[in-house]
């Protein structure tokens, strides 16, 4: 009998909790977007960059008059949830944003893995999503129609570094196919995708891989892999593993005095690379979607450099590209709303598909799979404690220093 009563109370509790649904999509003069970002868990650093990027652009857009649809001006608002850096939670939250909070316009989470979990949900409900932080190329092979990524896919992150090395070798009269490549990648969707791109690139040049290590996600020590690198003396060492991997790598490479002619990585700036490691970081090649020294600009933020100043003024640190991408995602939404002049999700999808715009972050236009074709990746090298763009040639502000000086000669 008592158990029965408990059961009844419980069930009525569930019903009660569910009856307080707040429907939101467009109410009054507010357009509500939804985003699951990683506020806790292993991606929380970059999750924070992502959220800051969204917030900055939202406030800036609202201050600049909001979004004009049908002659009326709307303010943007964003509902955030914390996906705890796990795909399981991210998928649930996407469902929740769409079905309970009535969100019709989605922004992406941080990282490829989480985007992979969210994309099937948005696709199912035919909710357009502009995502700024999911670069894994398998995202673009599932035929998703409602997902638009404003970044370059992950396989292109470091492929250009391999090309640079090949060019440098040929300039010295050596054949590119004589080069040896060492790869150390974290075992997660993003880094493994970067690896695929690198593998394709070095195979194109006929190079040989001498080390191909995967690191577990909880890595704090890669000395075994680096010892292998020392033993095999490769010409290029490529490392990718989010901020944690970048920080561990640079520290141990300098500690162990690993001498390689070329060292390339991802996530240098979000790891606070040059600030934290000083000299140890010198001559490293870093892949980035964006950098403040690039010559892109738009009417809202001004130039890339202006964006960096604005961002720093609000959040007190230099914007990593993760933040810039996120800000740009909101600009893409605004553009789509204003071109579609509608809040209909299908019309918005079609508008998004034909996006062609310039932002401080770069040119944006999507191909049929939803990835951005408008801008290339950039590679910079840390020189004298500064990030200098070395590739692509169009933006190169300095010449690549190659090979890296040996540790004993510094």
């Amino acid at each position, binding site marked *: 009998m008592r158990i029965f009563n408990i059961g009844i109370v419980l069930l009525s509790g569930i019903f009660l909790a569910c009856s307080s649904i707040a429907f939101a999509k467009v109410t009054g003069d507010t357009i509500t977007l939804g985003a699951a970002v990683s506020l*806790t868990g292993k991606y929380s650093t970059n999750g924070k960059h992502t959220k800051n990027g969204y917030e900055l652009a939202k406030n800036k857009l609202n201050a600049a008059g909001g979004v004009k649809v049908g002659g009326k001006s709307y303010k943007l608002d964003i509902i955030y949830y914390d996906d705890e850096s796990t795909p399981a939670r991210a998928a649930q939250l996407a469902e929740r944003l769409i079905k309970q909070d009535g969100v019709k316009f989605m922004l992406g989470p941080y990282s490829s893995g989480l985007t992979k979990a969210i994309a099937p949900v948005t696709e199912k409900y035919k909710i357009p999503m502009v995502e700024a932080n999911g670069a894994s190329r398998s995202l673009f092979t599932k035929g998703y129609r409602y997902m638009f990524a404003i970044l370059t896919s992950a396989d292109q992150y470091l492929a250009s570094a391999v090309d640079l090395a090949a060019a440098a070798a040929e300039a010295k009269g050596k054949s590119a196919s004589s080069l040896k490549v060492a790869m150390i990648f974290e075992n997660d969707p993003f880094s493994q995708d970067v690896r695929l791109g690198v593998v394709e690139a070095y195979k194109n040049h006929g190079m040989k891989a001498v080390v191909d*290590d995967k690191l*577990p996600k909880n890595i*704090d*020590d890669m*000395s075994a892999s680096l010892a292998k690198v020392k*033993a095999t003396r490769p010409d290029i060492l490529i490392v990718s593993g989010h901020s*944690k991997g970048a*920080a561990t790598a640079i520290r141990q490479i300098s500690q162990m005095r690993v001498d390689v002619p070329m060292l390339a990585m991802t996530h240098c700036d979000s790891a606070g690379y040059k600030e934290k490691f000083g000299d140890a970081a010198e001559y490293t090649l870093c892949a980035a979607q964006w950098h403040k020294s690039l010559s892109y600009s738009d009417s809202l933020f001004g130039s890339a450099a202006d964006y960096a100043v604005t961002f720093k003024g609000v959040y007190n640190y230099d914007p990593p590209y993760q933040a810039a991408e996120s800000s740009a995602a909101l600009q893409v939404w605004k553009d789509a709303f204003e071109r579609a002049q509608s809040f209909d999700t299908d019309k918005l999808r079609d508008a998004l598909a034909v996006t062609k715009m310039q932002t401080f972050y770069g040119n944006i236009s999507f191909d049929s799979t939803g990835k951005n074709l408008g801008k290339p990746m950039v590679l910079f090298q840390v020189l004298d404690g500064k990030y200098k763009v070395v590739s692509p040639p169009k933006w190169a502000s300095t010449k690549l220093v190659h090979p890296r000086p040996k540790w004993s000669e510094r």
Partner: protein
Amino acid sequence: MDNILLLIEAPFLSVQAILDGIIIGALFSLAAYGMALVWGVMRIINIAQGEFVILGGYVAYFLYEAGIHPMFGIPVAGVVLFVVGYGLYKVVIYRVVDKDLFISLLATFGLSILIQQLMNIMFGADVQIAEAGFGTSFMFDYNVTIPHIRIVTFIVSAFLGALLVIYIKRSRLGQAIRATAQNARAARVMGIDTDHVYAMTFSLNAAICGATGALVAMTFAIHPYIGLPYTIRSFMIVIMAGLGNLPGVIAAGTGIGVAEQFADYIFGAEFRMAFIFLLLVAFLVWRGRMLARKREVLK
């Protein structure tokens, strides 16, 4: 296969692996010794061990940020964590100390989640390091590297371990701790304030973890979510060595450290965690089997 060939072709890799393993093992042994202390005296398996280590690392990191050499972080982290440990004992642990082992296991698990998340909120999820600024030594024509910080780590671990053993052997509190470990009820009858002993034991363990953490921040890197491997390694070492067996702890610690390094070379680093954990499972099952032969069970 290639990996094994590489080991044979480049013998200095083995030297490197053994050196790294021993130094890392010393670090693990220290945390493991603390865990054995708590386990033996209080019958609590502290899942939050790794979080204490990381917390200690943050103390060293903040000293470093404040411009103080992180070596000072070793004693400071010890003191700070001692206080933290005492507080946690008074608030949570003393309520579960006499309960079922599984209850205390869960309680410390809750603590570990709590500490992790609070660290994330307070310090951020960035990877942090406290650079000690020591140099590096080389052997075999630059092929084997020994960062000095690792040597320092080894020496400090050994020194702290020895200090601890002497303290437990000689001091009054140490004697009370040993008496309580053998038979808490008898100790209570003999007028030992076991509650105080428990509080001190738990705080002492936290202090050891804190010092270990300071070394970790200088040798490796810290961030809020990297505690669990330290807990698991400590646990492995303790079961392999048995409670209250310091030479065993050191042997098991360095053994695991070296085994891990070689596993890295042979199976690839992506299986490192799997290797450690499967080793744990295999060891337990093997011990269970051996005891079953004597018609006993692992209890």
